[in-house]
């Protein structure tokens, strides 16, 4: 039951302010379970943000971004009806995405 990226956005003076919350453990690979076993590194490595299908921002993250990452960014020339999409890929090859239609 994987949760989707949560996206919120509002347009002000043609600039969209997008806020996102991504479900992800962001394990550093140095934490130990009670058993003593190390929890393997599992973190988002790349985030790509698109505006109407065009890439506008690409982030690279290390495991020091917090668990269930929050990420806010802005996009110029935004209008109601525009589609903002965010897609993450992690070090294990998994990915997740979310889409928002701006109002």
């Amino acid at each position, binding site marked *: *039951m994987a*949760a989707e990226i*949560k996206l*919120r956005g509002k347009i002000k003076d043609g600039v969209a302010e997008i806020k996102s*919350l991504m479900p992800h453990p962001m394990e550093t690979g140095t934490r130990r379970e009670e058993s003593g076993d190390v929890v393997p590194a599992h973190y988002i490595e790349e985030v790509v943000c698109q505006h109407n299908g065009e890439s506008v921002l690409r982030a690279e993250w290390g495991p020091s971004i917090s668990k*269930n990452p929050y990420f806010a960014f802005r996009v110029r020339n935004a209008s109601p009806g525009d589609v903002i999409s965010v897609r993450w890929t992690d070090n294990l090859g998994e990915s997740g995405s979310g889409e928002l239609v701006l109002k």
Partner: protein
Amino acid sequence: MKNPFDRVLLLSAVLLSSFALASPKEDLAAFRAFYESRFPEIELADHADGAYALDEAKRAQWLEMEDFPPYEFAIDEGEALFEMAFSDGESYASCFQSEGRGIKHLYPMFDEVAGEVVTLELALNRCREAHGEAPLDYEGDEIAALMAYMAYTSRGQTYDIKVPEAGLGAYEAGKQFFYERRGQLNFACSSCHLQSGGGMLRAEILSASVGHATHWPTYRFKWERVGTLHDRFIECNEQVGAQGLAPQSASYRNLEYFLTYMNNGMVLNGPASRK
């Protein structure tokens, strides 16, 4: 009595013991009066924000987190769990008034038939058992998620917990627990949250007890998950070197009853994030 703190304790004990036979209504008035005089510049309602009502810098950070809080996923999980049918086709909605939405502020309540305090967590598991389902672990993620959803649907409701004649014993037991010292550190809940409310404990600011039960369940950054009020009771007890009791044990339910009664007139604002 060389230690001035002891003198304060004795005075407090005398004052408090004189309230031992007071009615819950009188206790509440005295409780509120205490915090009003201890924090004259803070509205009583604002203590629902705990330590975030007491420090600007902490509050600013907290508001940033609350803008898009980490417990949002738990609310969604809770909603999905809440709507899932039991194996007999019924669901949680059939066990509660208003189909279980917007009712968290009514808990805990005193069940006169069973003769005990019923918290919402207890009611959820009793609902499950009534419909042939195994009970949920009180310290697990599912109960926390369900509570997060139920708190979310109840935001803005005002507390008006009732203590009927039959419930006085449980109320008094909860009150007793609150004022009773325990553990290696020999602290009572009141030691930190009443006598030292607003004070510092190393780098922590001690929150006031008035409003303590309003914002549960809570996403503690420390826990990196949503946890229940009883999770916190256990943690607090262990932190003073006392044994944590079982979640939903009678002692904790009675304590929750007392604490929530002391929230009467305040608004439910759970789930919430906390440090």
